[in-house]
């Protein structure tokens, strides 16, 4: 962490880190609720770093990013991002879409296809065309982002007593990371302080990684620090 760039002292950084890390305990229940499976080997790393350092820290492969975006309002303004590589998005998307059918099938030792209701069978990935499948994947991954945003904003509320709300998240492909870079440049001129949460987890035998990125405005960051 570059103390000079974030203009935050070690104790301020420590306080903010502690506040936000209170959200970590709800990540596993979120992943398990939505994937309907046990999540193994969960690792969560939270860093508060200058916006200019984020790309280097994230070290993303040059492939499109699946991006879920939320605008924050209230005591803290700014943006929230839920990001994954295309590869991980596709893996996670399949798991999410077929999660409930898969969980029904796992419940018995005998063939359980008959237990799966017709309305659910119709929604399985094998029954969707390419466009529908991608839309459903984004729908499901957006919901994951929605719940994870909520967890960390609740942590912020509980730790700093700041009411922060967000618009219904939207989702986009960020083919060349332009959206991300644009957001980081904007934040550099604001608080220059990025909350970066890396989530590594294993579900359905897949090792996946997702990023949560919170970019608060300067007044919001001050409000967080002043709440101590």
């Amino acid at each position, binding site marked *: 962490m570059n103390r000079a760039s974030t203009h935050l002292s070690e104790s301020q950084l420590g306080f903010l880190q502690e506040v936000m890390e209170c959200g970590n305990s709800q990540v596993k*229940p979120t992943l398990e609720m939505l994937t309907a499976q046990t999540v193994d080997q969960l690792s969560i790393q939270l860093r508060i770093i200058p916006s200019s350092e984020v790309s280097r820290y994230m070290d993303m492969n040059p492939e499109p990013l699946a991006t879920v975006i939320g605008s924050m309002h209230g005591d803290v303004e700014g943006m929230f991002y839920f990001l994954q590589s295309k590869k991980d998005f596709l893996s996670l998307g399949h798991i999410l879409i077929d999660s409930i059918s898969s969980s029904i099938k796992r419940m018995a030792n005998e063939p359980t296809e008959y237990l799966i209701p017709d309305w659910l069978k119709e929604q399985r990935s094998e029954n969707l065309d390419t466009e529908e499948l991608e839309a459903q994947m984004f729908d499901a991954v957006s919901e994951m982002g929605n719940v994870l945003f*909520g967890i960390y904003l609740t942590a912020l509320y509980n730790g700093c007593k700041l*009411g922060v709300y967000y618009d219904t998240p939207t989702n986009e492909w960020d083919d060349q990371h332009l959206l991300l870079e644009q957001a980081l440049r904007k934040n550099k001129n604001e608080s220059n302080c990025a909350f970066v949460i890396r989530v590594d987890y294993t579900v359905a035998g897949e090792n996946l990684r997702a990023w949560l990125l919170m970019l608060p405005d300067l007044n919001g960051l001050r409000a967080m620090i002043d709440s101590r």
Partner: protein
Amino acid sequence: MATILIADDAQIMRNILRLMLEKAGHEIVGNATNGVEALERYVQLKPELVTMDIHMEGGDGMTGLEQIVQQDPAAKVLMVSAVGQEQKEEEARNLGAVGYVRKPFQLDDLLEHIHNALTG
């Protein structure tokens, strides 16, 4: 057993809720993807309970809650949301919500809230 309308813009959440609630013996009579549709479906289907998300495109859940309760002061609307701030919960209760479940939730927790909403 109760008749329930699920209002959530995420299909995965509608599926999860539907399966959990049907497993518990409730009947899902309809779905809505935003607050406006929730009001329309409520008037049409007259469910005993509505589960309502907050963040929905095309009509948020708080507005949907307010309009349903205005339409029917006896309506039972249970908020099911990722927004876990007490302020929001209080706002929902002031608008007439009979309960508030935070995502992520466990089955037992959800069913307890449903039971309390129906019998309270």
